[in-house]
């Protein structure tokens, strides 16, 4: 009966068919899936570059690729992973799909704008992809001037243009989310009844809306300098290359929080669901997201400690960087306190959430090393920095993304993923990740600089470990790719609320109907009130 009901019922996936029904859709759920396909492509492109980097670093000699090619590899790895995978990842896929449902809305406030955002990402991606195929770009993902404006002979303009266009995708998504949260909440869905995932995405949207335009104008200035020879950053005319770094990091440091904040939101949902407890200190966790968004804008100068920034500015930025640790720590402590005396279930999403907490803590604590002026000078531009931000961006953001994908997969597709394989791959990813990046902390501390394709022989053992870890990690990423696709056809049919979770998204069927709810829900409980699901549990179909 269950199966029949699910097959018969009309939902967002079978409401209409054909390419046109997808490419012109205004349904936030379908747009979420379009994003999913796009960013998965870029994840594998970025992953391919990473593979080549790690293979080159197996041996101390630069024998696989020339140093010029190596420059292009790490640049394109960064561009693909940051601008076309991590930044859109959780907001544009899971946020797009679930933010409206979680606040009881039929769609985002501006569905057409939402579709436009996806097209902008695709157009931007096409520009950057063209640059990669045509010959690549070698400036590093940071595009520092004057190298990027005057000296580099690679495809700077096409890549930068791609990032510029994709930036507007990010801006419009953020704008859409903010308006939706302000204006589209269901009756009874007060600000403090919103799930923490919504809070996290709201805070992320603030950063997208306030930060991305600054990157956009920075790219415009770089563009006019390279193409029309205007001289905003040209030291030969009295311009200041460090000004470029200021403008660039004004966006690009907060961009890290664009990646990590939504992940924290996912982790809050997962921890609560799989320990059957309301998140400890809900208000603190909610406001810590906003605090991170605000403070994140005040710390960009810690990327310029060795760029000739004044010592006074350095000290202020150092202090403020330490300050961000407070709201971050609030989250970690509150998640831990949520677990206390909870009924913990070790399902796959929970494994990813645990992975997130551990790896994010390592990444965050090593961030404190880098925020310290003296220590930073020792490890600037070494593998210590590489390891630190991969712990945040891969260990943190990506673990949260995968956790969220598993958590919500049944809702998105109406199918369960195979639990055994999923647990295995979560474990493989965790081990592979640590094997890849922990040795890099040591390498960096010992003085191995980033962005070179050759290195002294004494660093080889640690580099081999790291490459071995990367291979394990690659396998770990391929397994979910395979079983997610497999589950679309062969997975068990998912009930409406497989986890016994409290969010509104679990009150509607899996997959949801076109307008999300049969009737607009009226909210009368807090976000994590498990008494609401006690009676009606396993209400299938």
């Amino acid at each position, binding site marked *: 009966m269950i199966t029949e009901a699910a097959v018969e019922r009309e939902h967002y996936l079978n409401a209409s068919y054909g390419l046109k029904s997808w490419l012109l859709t205004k349904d936030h759920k379908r747009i979420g899936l379009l994003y999913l396909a796009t960013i998965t492509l870029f994840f594998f492109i970025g992953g391919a570059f990473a593979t080549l980097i790690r293979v080159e670093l197996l041996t101390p000699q630069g024998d696989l690729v020339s140093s010029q090619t190596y420059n292009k590899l790490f640049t394109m790895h960064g561009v693909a992973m940051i601008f076309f995978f991590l930044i859109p990842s959780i907001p544009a896929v899971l946020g797009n799909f679930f933010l409206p449902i979680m606040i009881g*809305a*039929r*769609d*985002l*406030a*501006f*569905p057409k*704008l939402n579709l436009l955002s996806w097209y902008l990402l695709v157009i931007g991606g096409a520009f950057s992809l063209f640059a990669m195929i045509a010959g690549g770009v070698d400036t590093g993902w940071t595009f520092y001037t004057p190298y990027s404006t005057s000296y580099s002979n690679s495809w700077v303009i096409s890549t930068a243009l791609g990032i510029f266009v994709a930036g507007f995708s990010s*801006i419009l998504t953020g*704008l*859409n989310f*903010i*308006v939706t949260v*302000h*204006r*589209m909440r269901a009756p009874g869905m007060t600000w403090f009844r919103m799930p923490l995932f919504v809070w996290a995405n709201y805070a992320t949207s603030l950063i997208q*809306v*306030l*930060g*991305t*335009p*600054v990157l*956009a*104008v*920075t790219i*415009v*200035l770089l563009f*006019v*300098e390279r193409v*029309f*020879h*205007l*001289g*905003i950053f040209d030291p*030969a*005319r*009295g*311009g*200041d290359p460090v*000004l470029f770094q*200021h*403008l660039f990091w*004004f966006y690009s440091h907060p961009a890290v929080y664009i990646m990590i904040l939504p992940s924290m939101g996912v982790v809050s949902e997962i921890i609560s669901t799989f320990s059957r407890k309301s998140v400890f200190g809900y208000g603190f966790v909610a406001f810590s997201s906003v605090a991170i968004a605000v403070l994140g804008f005040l710390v960009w100068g810690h990327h310029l400690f060795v760029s000739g920034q004044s010592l006074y500015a350095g000290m202020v930025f150092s202090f403020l960087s330490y300050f961000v640790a407070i709201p971050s720590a609030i989250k970690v402590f509150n998640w831990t306190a949520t677990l206390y005396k909870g009924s913990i279930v070790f399902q796959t999403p929970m494994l990813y959430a645990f992975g997130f907490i551990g790896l994010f803590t390592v990444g965050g604590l090593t961030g404190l090393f880098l925020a310290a002026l003296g220590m930073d000078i020792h490890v600037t531009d070494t593998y210590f920095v590489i390891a630190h931000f991969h712990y945040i961006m891969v260990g943190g953001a990506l673990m949260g993304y995968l956790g969220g994908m598993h958590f919500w997969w049944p809702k998105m597709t109406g199918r369960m993923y195979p639990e055994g394989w999923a647990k295995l791959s979560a474990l493989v990813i965790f081990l592979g990740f640590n094997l890849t990046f922990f040795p890099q902390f040591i390498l960096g501390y010992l003085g191995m600089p980033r962005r070179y394709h050759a290195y002294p022989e004494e660093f080889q053992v640690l580099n081999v470990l790291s490459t071995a870890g990367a291979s394990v990690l690659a396998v770990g990423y391929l397994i979910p790719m395979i079983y997610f696709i497999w589950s679309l056809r062969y997975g068990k049919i998912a009930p409406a609320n497989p986890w016994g979770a409290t969010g509104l998204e679990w009150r509607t069927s899996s997959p949801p109907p076109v*307008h999300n709810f*049969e*009737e*607009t829900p009226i909210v009368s409980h807090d976000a994590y009130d498990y008494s609401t699901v006690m009676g009606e549990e396993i209400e299938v179909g």
Partner: protein
Amino acid sequence: MADHSLTNHAQTESLALRVQFDTAAQQKDASQLGMWIFLITEIMFFGGMFAAYTVYRNWYPEVFAIASSSLNAVLGAINTGVLLLSSFTMVMAVRAGQLGQQKMIIIFLILTLLFGGVFLGVKAIEWKEKFDEHHIPGQAAFHLEGLKDYDQGHAQLFFSLYFAMTGLHALHMVIGVGIILTLIMQAKKGIYSADYYTPVDVAGLYWHFVDVIWIFLFPLLYLIDRHLGK
């Protein structure tokens, strides 16, 4: 659900209420909030250039003053007046929307369009002057009279900022002209009324914003030598 599509259908004709909204007021609120947030992103966008301007003017105050005096302040002032007038006609278009006067909406939008066009025309003349005078940064022929060779580079910074800032402002004007053209065509179909004129309202916010940017650009670029007491 059935209920919903019923009310939707009834309101579609007069209010163009989209399916994701419950009420027309909610839809209007959302559109306005959306535009305000977009304008905040625009402030951040122009803010990057204003920051660069602040740094360089602080470093090279005399060169900036001399370079500024080579701009045509009279044309700049005329353009400021033209833009203010266009903002006035835009306000009147929104007012006509509130009153549901369809004809007046069109008339005032056309006037706004005209003033916008005049501004861009004057801007084009000014830019042409700069080309004739070899005040184009990045060209070997660049030379600003009254400055030592050493300062020519700094003057190029001023003109780099001048072209970047007025260029992006003009681009925003062009986009605004496009929006107003679309509005005029929509208004001719008679879709705006006292109950539904949100697009006019929201486009008005954008137009005023672009106007305000110019209000800042004009003194910062054209008038900085005035207080040197020449």
